[in-house]
């Protein structure tokens, strides 16, 4: 009767659907772009008559799909190229900040044009935090599906790993990774960073000689998530996630709980992929703004706020039975005040 709505946050809950759409789109692009590349090589060769039947089929399919949109397939299809590690979008080169950090460590120098390619991702991370992990990372799509698999397996009584490690472990992985880059003189962090691996291996699978060792590493991370810790790789080991977490520590846009409408149902905590504690306002730098908690909240108590820090320890939600019991008198006053007005 006295529910106060500070603002109508209900629109935010649909963001999670948008996020899934983005994840699927990015993953689909990683598969489609190598096919476009293969098609472009056929176009460049002007050798349609020499193509094998399977190749000719691919040529025809892609030509039919893209012909309405492009005049010159050998150039127009270049508008989106690359992968989630480094790529081009309408002529703008963008790279993962970890690629730049790794290159700086390996080469012990700064190459300014390359530094600039990380500018947009870094600025976006400063604003939106670790959003790359939740919204764009192609590995995240598979990891989240892996979480669903874990739930499914749980229904059949299969036990999965639920260990908790220290989230700070990934900062050590980041530091050691960069150190190894510096010692070896090669950007080896790219070999243990899932978005880089997936982008590369999918390209190898389509346009090169098939998947390489990176695919095995990725399978190992999926098994790690399944058998050792829920979303363990992203939470405890991912060097790129660590860098994004550090950059997004003082992110401007963050999820916040509206303590007045919260009823302490704990759904947000159980849905959080990263094992954070939205229920007690503990998001921290790990939160990747994935909006899963917002989508699951039955009373729309979670939403985005433009703030540099979390609002810590707001206490139990005012709609929770516990709070009602403890604050009976205050609520009475509160209700009266409202009814008067």
């Amino acid at each position: 009767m006295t529910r106060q709505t500070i603002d109508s946050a209900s629109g935010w809950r649909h963001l999670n659907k948008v996020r899934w759409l983005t994840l699927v789109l990015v993953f689909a692009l990683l598969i489609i772009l190598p096919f476009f590349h293969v098609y472009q090589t056929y176009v460049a060769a002007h050798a349609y008559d020499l193509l094998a039947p399977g190749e000719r089929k691919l040529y025809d399919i892609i030509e039919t799909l893209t012909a309405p949109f492009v005049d010159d397939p050998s150039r127009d299809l270049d508008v989106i190229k690359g992968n989630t590690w480094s790529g081009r979008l309408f002529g703008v080169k963008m790279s993962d900040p970890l690629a730049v950090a790794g290159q700086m460590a390996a080469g012990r120098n700064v190459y300014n044009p390359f530094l600039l390619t990380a500018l947009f991702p870094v600025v976006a991370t400063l604003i939106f935090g670790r959003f790359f992990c939740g919204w764009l990372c192609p590995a995240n799509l598979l990891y989240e599906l892996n979480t669903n698999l874990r739930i499914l397996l749980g229904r059949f009584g299969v036990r999965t790993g639920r260990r908790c490690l220290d989230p700070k472990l990934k900062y050590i992985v980041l530091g050691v990774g960069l150190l190894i880059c510096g010692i070896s003189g090669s950007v080896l962090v790219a070999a243990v960073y899932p978005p880089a691996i997936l982008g590369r291996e999918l390209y190898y699978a389509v346009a090169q000689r098939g998947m390489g060792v990176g695919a095995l590493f990725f399978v190992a991370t999926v098994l790690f998530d399944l058998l050792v810790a829920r979303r363990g790789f992203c939470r405890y080991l991912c060097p790129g996630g660590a860098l994004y977490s550090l950059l997004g520590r003082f992110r401007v846009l963050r999820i916040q709980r509206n303590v007045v409408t919260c009823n302490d149902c704990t759904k947000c905590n159980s849905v959080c992929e990263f094992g954070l504690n939205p229920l007690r306002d503990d998001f921290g730098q790990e939160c990747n703004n994935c909006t899963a908690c917002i989508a699951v909240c039955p009373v729309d108590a979670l939403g985005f706020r433009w703030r540099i820090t979390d609002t810590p320890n707001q206490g139990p939600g005012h709609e929770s039975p516990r709070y009602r019991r403890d604050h009976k008198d205050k609520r009475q006053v509160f209700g009266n005040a409202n009814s008067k007005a």
Partner: protein
Amino acid sequence: MTAMAPATSTAVQARTKRNGQRYLRPPGALPESEFVSRCIHCGQCGEVCPNRCINYFGFENGLTSLDTPYITPREKACILCMKCGEVCPSGAIQPVRRTIPAITEGVRMGRAQVDKQLCLSYQGKTCGVCYRACPLPDLALRVGMLEQPEVLDACVGCGLCERSCIQMPQAIRIIPAHTQTGEVL
């Protein structure tokens, strides 16, 4: 000293084994060690290559070369389209304009070498296929009497001559830049 000898020889062996595969880096690539430190293993050079001549290393060339691009000229040679340097985000492959002066200046993949024992033209059977395949004819490769090829200083090592050589094994092959300088080996 005698105790050191086997260790040294195995080290040399390991190095030789590591470089047993003759490969070229894409056109415009920096010198080998600098290239390896710059390359971020993103795969865009291969993705843009219209000739699909760029492959990627697994572990066969050592850990530091993992997922770095290479070209095996006998399988598929570089056509010097210079697109890979254009897309390379980290400058491991430097952008080079697609003009003859810019290419002869900026591209240093290797240098062709003719094996006169194998070359048909030197064995009295006029051939000249390598000369016809060369993208820089008379600058990088010249033919004399009986189409006998002679490599000139402007050769950038694209490998089209090696790719086209009709002899088996090939009579002309690219000596990669990184093995010429003695930097790696």
